[in-house]
C-alpha cells in the first residue's frame, strides 16, 4: 500500500501531502524534512527509488515538482511510479498544461483529484475518463451550492460577534 503522497518543489516547499497511514504531526514534519533532504540532491540520471527507514520511496520529478509516494519494500516499484504518472496526467487534463502554480492556487482540486485516484493507499481508478467525469460532477455540485457552502463561516461569525 501507499503510506503517503508528498509533493514538494525544487526548493523543498511542500505543495501537497496525503497520509494513508497514521503519522503524528511531529513524524510528518520529520518525514518531509528527511525525505526532501534525501531526494532533492539526487541527480537526474539515478533511479526513481530511494530506500528509507525500511520502506521505499518512489519519486519522480516533473518540471520543478517532485512527486513522492512511499510504499512497502516488497511492493512493486514501477507500478507505483506509473500511479504517479497517471495522477499527473489527470491533473494535466484537468488544468490543461498543469504547472506548479495551478497546484498552489487550486490545491483543493489537486486533493479532490487525488481522492478519486487513491483511497486507503490503493489505486481506486485507472481510467482517466472516469476520474474526469467524477470531478466534473463534483464541480457542478460545488457551483450549485456555493452560497450554502459559505453558510457555516457566516454562522460562526454571527455567533461570535
Amino acid at each position, binding site marked *: 500500500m501507499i503510506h503517503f503522497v508528498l509533493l514538494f518543489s525544487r526548493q523543498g516547499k511542500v505543495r501537497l501531502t496525503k497520509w494513508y497511514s497514521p503519522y503524528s504531526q511531529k513524524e510528518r514534519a520529520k518525514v518531509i524534512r528527511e525525505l526532501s533532504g534525501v531526494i532533492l540532491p539526487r541527480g537526474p540520471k539515478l*533511479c526513481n527509488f530511494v530506500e528509507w527507514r525500511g520502506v521505499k520511496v518512489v519519486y519522480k520529478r516533473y518540471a520543478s515538482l517532485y512527486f513522492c509516494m512511499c510504499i512497502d*519494500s*516488497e511492493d*512493486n*516499484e514501477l507500478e507505483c511510479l506509473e500511479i504517479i504518472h497517471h495522477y499527473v496526467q489527470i491533473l494535466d487534463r484537468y488544468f490543461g498544461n498543469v504547472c506548479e502554480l495551478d497546484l498552489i492556487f487550486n490545491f483543493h482540486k489537486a486533493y479532490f483529484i487525488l481522492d478519486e485516484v487513491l483511497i*486507503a493507499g490503493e489505486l*481506486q481508478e485507472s481510467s482517466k475518463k472516469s476520474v474526469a467525469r467524477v470531478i466534473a460532477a463534483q464541480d457542478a455540485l460545488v457551483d450549485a*451550492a456555493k452560497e450554502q457552502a459559505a453558510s457555516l463561516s457566516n454562522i460562526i461569525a454571527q455567533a461570535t460577534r
Partner: protein
Amino acid sequence: MALSGMRGLSVFISDVRNCQNKEQERLRVDKELANIRTKFKHEKGLTPYEKKKYVWKMLYIYMLGYDVDFGHMETVALISAPKYAEKQVGNVGGKEFSESLAPDVQKLLISSSCRPLVRKKAALCLLRLYRKNADVVNVEGWSDRMAQLLDERDIGVLTAVMSLLVSLVANNPDGYWNCVSKCVKIIERLTRSQDIPQEYTYYGIPSPWLQVKTMRVLQYFPSIEDPNIRKSLFEVLQRILMGTDVVKNVNKNNASHAVLFEALSLVMHLDAEKDMMSQCVALLGKFIAVREPNIRYLGLENMTRMLLVADVQESIKRHQAQIITSLKDPDISIRRRSLDLLYGMCDVTNAKDIVEELLQYLTTADFAIREELALKAAILAEKFAPDLSWYVDVILQLIEKAGDFVSDDIWYRVVQFVTNNEDLQAYAAATARDYLDKPAVHETMVKVAGYLLGEYSHLLARRPGCSPREIFPIIHDKFPNVATSTKALLLSAYIKILMHSQPGDPELQKQVLSVFKKYETYLDAEVQQRAIEYFVLSQKGPSMVDIMAEMPKFPERQSALLKKAEDTDGDAAELSATKLRLQQQTSNAVVVVNQHSANGTSHPAPLSSVSSGTRNIDRGFLEQSQVGPQHNDVPVKAAGMVQSLTADLLGDLLAPLAIEAAPASVAATPTTAILPLEEPPVGPADPLALAVLDGNSSSVQPVGSTSDWFNALCKKDSGVLYEDPFIQIGIKGEWRGPQGRVVIFLGNKHTVALTSVRAIVLPPSHLRMQLPPVPELIPPRAQVQCPLDVLSLHASREVPVLDFSYNNSAVTVGSKLRLPVVMSKFLQPAPISSADFVAIWRSLAGPPNKLQEVVRGVNPMLISEMTELFNMFHICVSPGLDPNPNNIVAATTFFSESGATLCLVRVETDPADRTQLRLTVASTDASTTFELKEYIKEQLVDISSITANPATLGFTGPAAALAGLL
C-alpha cells in the same frame, strides 16, 4: 436565508460560549444532546435542513470534546442526500463514525444496483476498515462474495476489489482458495487484451495495475496445485516473460516492466521448472547490465530475492563481475542492492573475491553505507573464510580502513575467534603488532591490538622486535590519546605482558609499575581501580600467574554480528536471506573442538592462596576484560566464577570446560584421561548398576556408578552424570525459583568421532522441559553443549529421564539416565522467626495440609549431620526454635509455576534409636506437603537398605516405569 436558517445552531454556539464555567457548559451540552436524541427518535419526518442542523450541532459538541454515541445512521443518511450541502455535512461527520459502518459498506459493495463509483469506494473503504479491525470481514460468508465480485466487468471496480483481495488473502490465504481460478482467468483475459475498454489501457497495455495486483494475490497463496490452473497460469507468465520488449516511451516501458517483474516474482513463488527459472535468471542478468537505472535496480533486487529459491546460485554467480560493477554505481540505491546481492550470493567459493572487493570499496564508499558494508564484510569473512588467518587479516584491514564504522561487535568477534583457535594466536598477535607500527592507528585497532598482544605477545617473544620490553612501548605510545575504556583495557594488557615476561625483566617492571602508579589517581574510577589493583597484584609474585593467565575459550554462540545484521536490516529480502542461513544450522547446540587444551594446564596455586581481597580484583579483572568480547555473557561468567570459588572443586568438572579455567581442571584431567586407560570398565561389578536404566546389551559400560553420580548431583549443581570410555556427560544447572537451566555437556573422549548421537528428554508431567536437537556427530575430543530449560509446574518426586545413544564406530551404545532435576532444586531456604513459625504451624492444623509419619529404617545420623543434609537440600534448619535438642525444625519455600509455597518441616528423633524418627511436614498446599514429606523420607532412609531391597523405595514416574520395563 442561510443565516437566519441556522439560527438554532448559532444560538447554541453562543449559549455555549457564554457559559461561565465548565459545569454550566456541560449542562447546556447535555440538554442539547437530549434534545437531539428525542428529535431523531420521535420525529420521523425531519427535513433535510433539520437533519443537517442537528448533525452540525453534534459535530460541534464532538469538537468540544464530549462523547457523541448516537446519530451515526443519520449522518450516513446525509452522505447520500441529494443536495451538496447536506452531502458535505455527511462526509465531515462520517469520518468520525466509520467504525460502525462495515456492514453497510459490504452491502454497498455487493449490491448490483449501486453505481460503480460507489462500489469501488466501498471496496477500498472496507479495506481500510479491515486493516483497522480484521473482524469486520467474516471469512466464512465473505469468500464466496469475493469470488462473485471477481466476475465484475467494470475494471475500475475490479481494481479496487483486487486491492481488497490482496489484503484479505495476505492475512488468510486458506479462506480464499475459491478465488484462485478466477484470478488466473482475469490475468489471462488481461494479457490477451480481451474485452478491455479503451479507457482502461495505459499506453496500450491493458490496466497494468490490475495485472500486477492479480499476480500479487496469487503470490499470497502457498502454492497452486491444480494442474490445469497451473498450466494456464504458466502459459500466461511465459508470454509475459518473453513478450516484454524494451520500448522508447519511458512510461510504457515502466508499465510493461512493472508487469514483468511481478510475473518474475510469481514464477519464483510458484517454484517453476528449472528451465523457466534459468530463463528468469538470464532475463535478470540482462537487466542488471542495462543503462536504465530503474531496471538495473529492480534486476539486482529480484536477483537477491531469487537467491532464496534453490539451485540458481550457480547461474547467478556468472553475473558476479557485473554485480561488482554495480557496487560502484553513482546511485546509492543501486549500490545498496548490489551489496545485498553480493552478501546473499557469497559462499565458500567466491568469498575471497567478494570480501576483498568489499574491502576495496570500503575506502571509497559513502558514509551512509559504510557501517552496513563493514558489518557484512565481517560476517562473510567469518562465515566463509577459506583459512583462519585470512579472516584475521580481513578484520584487521576492515578496522584499519573503516575504524569508525566498525562496531564493537566486530572486534569482539575476532577476539573470540582468536581465543578459541590456538594456531591463530601467534599470527594474530604478530599482525596486530604490525598494525600498531603504522602512523595513524584507529582506536578500535588499539583495542584489538592491546587485547591480542596482552594475551598472546609471549608467543612472539623470540621474534625480533617482539620481546615484552619492545612490545610495551609500542602499545603505550597510543595510551595518552585513547578513550578511558581503552585505557582500562590497555592496563590489563600491560599486566599480562609483565606477567608473561617472568622471570622478571626489572626494566619492564619498572616502566609498567610507574604507569600503574601514575594512574592510581586517575579521574575515572575504572582505570583507577585497575591501576591500584594491578599495582598490588604485580607485587604478589607467582600467585599472579594464575590470575593473569590467558583467557579461557569462549563458549560458542551465534555470532552477535548476525543478530545485529538481522536487527538493523529493514529490508525483507535481506532479512530472509539471513534467516535462511540460520535455518541451516539445525541445532542450537554447538560443537567446541579441542576443549582440553593447554589452557588449563598450569594452575599450581588455587585461588584460595590469594588473599580474599584479590578474589574481588580477580573477578573484576575477568569481568572487565571480558566486557569486550563477552559483553552479552558477563553475568553468566560472573556467576560461574562465584560458583567455582564455592563449589566442590573435585565435583565441578565442567567449570573449566565451559566457564573458565578454574583449578578444578587439574582434578578433571585424570578422570577424563587416565581412567579409561588404566581401569577396566567397572560397571558390571557395581551393585548399584541396577539403578542405571541401561537396557541394551552393549559391551560399553560406564566407568562408575550412575546412581552415585545421580545422587551426588542431587546435592549440587554441576558434575558428571555419566561416563564411559567414549563419552562423558556432564551437567551444570542454574536454578531460580520455578525455573532452571540445565546445560548438558556431551564430551567425546575418544579419538574417533561419535556418530548417530541422539539425546531425548522424557519429562514427567510436573515439569515442562525441552531439549533442543543435539548434533548427530561429536568430533573427536570435542564437546557439545545442549541447554535445557526447565519449568516446574507442581510438586512431584518424579525425575526426567535422558534417553541417549551414540555410535562409536564399532557399536551403538545407549543408556537411559535419570536427570537430577529433583524437588530440592525448586526449594529455597526460608529463614523464619520463631513467632512466625509457631503461628503458621498452628494454622495448618491437620491432614491434608499437615502430614505426619513415623519413618523407620532411617540411616542413623547425628542431628548435626541431618541438619547439614537438610541444608544441602535447601531446607533451612532453624536451630533453637524447638527447645528439644533432638528435634529439627526447618522451613523452605517451594517454587512452581503457580507461585511459591512456604513449607514447614519438623523432625523428632529418638536419641535411643536413631533408625526411626517422626517426620511432620506442613504447607498450604496438600500435594506439596505430601510430595515434600515423601521426598525427605527418601533422603533419610538408609541407602544400603534400598540396595538390598529396591522395591521398598522404588522409583516413581517414567524413570521407574522404564526401569521396570527393562
